[in-house]
């Protein structure tokens, strides 16, 4: 691991630790600043086994929350009584059924459209004119699909809902991947790099095989993290309409019930997961891309 990588890793870990340290402050503010409903204050007090709230120091409450967070003990749902961790993990398993195929579909379709638009002028013009479709928010696409499925008589409560949710979730990533691929292909096609290697006697196919595909893979890897952030963040836009009981759906329910342990659980889980994914992606990128390590 080179110095640059080490620094990045250290910084990420430090910031992640700081985030974990800040999060327990939130319930304290909620309880003591009276932001929450009195009902939650009582339940929160019982959860923490702090029967005499006024007599307990802020530090004790903070350290108790922090310990619980680090031990992945986020308390029990104030609405259902289930542990927040079990709610989050069950939601995650359901959400993965949509997220993983969506990522694969986005890459495949985005690549195909990108190559197609780059190879043919007509295709490029069609793509440029139809780009606005990909700007439409996924919630709107979900609603329209749901209505359409019902209209054509498809039982949208069956497994079809996963397919529909998957399509709605991958619309924007397809747009991002297509545009990025187009740009990379254009840049590579007109680069000095290509001319230089051709002058050295390499054929175009050889250059593509040896170098260019690698650049595209590195590019794809860069989107992966952002795509995951986008998909996890806006998951509730597809899960709520289709009634898929994944993380997004449960997050919406938790917010509407002011179920703070579950909300905090989702936030900590999301932040930790994406930080780890970020670190892994960065490590792979540094391993693959000699441009990053040599500078």
């Amino acid at each position, binding site marked *: 691991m080179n110095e640059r990588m080490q620094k990045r890793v250290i*910084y*990420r870990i430090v910031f992640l630790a700081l985030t974990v340290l800040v999060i327990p402050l939130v319930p304290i503010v*909620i309880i003591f600043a009276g932001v929450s409903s009195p009902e939650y204050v009582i339940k929160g007090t019982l959860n923490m086994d702090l029967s005499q709230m006024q007599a307990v120091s802020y530090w004790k409450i903070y350290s108790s929350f922090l310990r619980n967070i680090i031990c992945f003990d986020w308390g029990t749902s104030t609405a259902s009584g289930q542990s927040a961790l079990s709610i989050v993990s069950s939601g995650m398993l359901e959400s993965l059924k949509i997220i993983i195929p969506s990522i694969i579909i986005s890459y495949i379709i985005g690549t195909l459209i990108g190559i197609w638009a780059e190879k043919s002028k007509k295709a490029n013009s069609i793509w440029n004119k139809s780009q606005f479709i990909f*700007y439409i*928010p996924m*919630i709107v696409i979900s609603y329209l699909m749901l209505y359409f499925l019902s209209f054509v008589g498809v039982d949208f409560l069956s497994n079809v809902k996963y397919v529909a949710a998957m399509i709605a979730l991958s619309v924007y990533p397809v747009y991002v991947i297509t545009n990025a691929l187009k740009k990379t292909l254009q840049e590579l096609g007109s680069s000095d790099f290509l001319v230089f290697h051709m002058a050295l006697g390499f054929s175009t196919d050889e250059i593509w095989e040896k170098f260019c595909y690698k650049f595209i893979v590195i590019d794809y890897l860069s989107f992966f993290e952002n795509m995951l952030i986008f998909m996890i963040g806006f998951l509730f836009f597809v899960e709520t309409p289709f009634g898929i009981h994944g993380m997004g759906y449960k997050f919406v329910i938790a917010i509407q019930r002011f179920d*703070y342990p579950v*909300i905090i659980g989702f936030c900590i889980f999301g*932040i930790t997961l994406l*930080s780890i994914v970020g670190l892994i992606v960065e490590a792979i990128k540094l391993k693959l891309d000699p441009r990053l390590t040599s500078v």
Partner: protein
Amino acid sequence: MCSLYDKSRLKYFTGLSLLLVAIVLIYKYEVSLNNNVMFLPPTWHHWFGTDVIGNDVFLKAIYALFVAVVTIAIVLPAIYIGGLIVGILVSYFDNPKLREFFLNLVHYWVTLPVLLIAVFLLILVGAGQGNVIGILIFVLIPSHSLYVYNQMEEAKKQDFVIAKRSYGFSKGYIFSHHLFPYVKNSFNTYTLSRMPEILMMDLAFNFLGLGVQPPHSSFGRMLFDGLSFMFSAWWMWVFAVILVILLFVLINSIVMSILKKEEEVRYG
């Protein structure tokens, strides 16, 4: 910078807006004269029908449009100014330690699920469109400042900047007279290109019920309310969907026209 500034277009937009305001005012007066009926499909008196408590859906949609436009009108200039100030300051005071810390912090920030963090903060400070706007500004400024910083650093490598330095011009002068004008256009475009993202996040907060509170309405709230009546009262969500699509298409066309203009200016 933008074809929107063309006088004819500006006149067209102003005229259209005034016409819309006039229609809404007359319509509102007409609606107030009627006894509103719950779950009424679109009629001559209620163009978009009525909702579960008898509110007129057309008026709700217009209010939601107003909320979306105001949100963009506040968030966009705020992140523009905030991003510019932070980005320029970090680029100006080129302390390597400070710079390294800032860059790593922003890189960490942009890899976080910003929407989750924003929801978390919103729950803390309480629901309301004012808070939504404040938190949107807070979560979007870091990536904006990173963009300014990167552009500034790139501009610093340009020959004309090196030449000005060698003439002995002060750092402040070079920043204000050369670097800022150099990055201004691309920064304007970048800021405008974030409109869909802002709208999407606003839609998300309101969908979760953390934005505009009843009796007022927003697109997100209308869509959420419409979900329960997806098949029994289609008018409760269809018009919101149409307006959201139109808004995004309009934004897309504005962004595209600006990008096209910029490309024309840059490449001739």
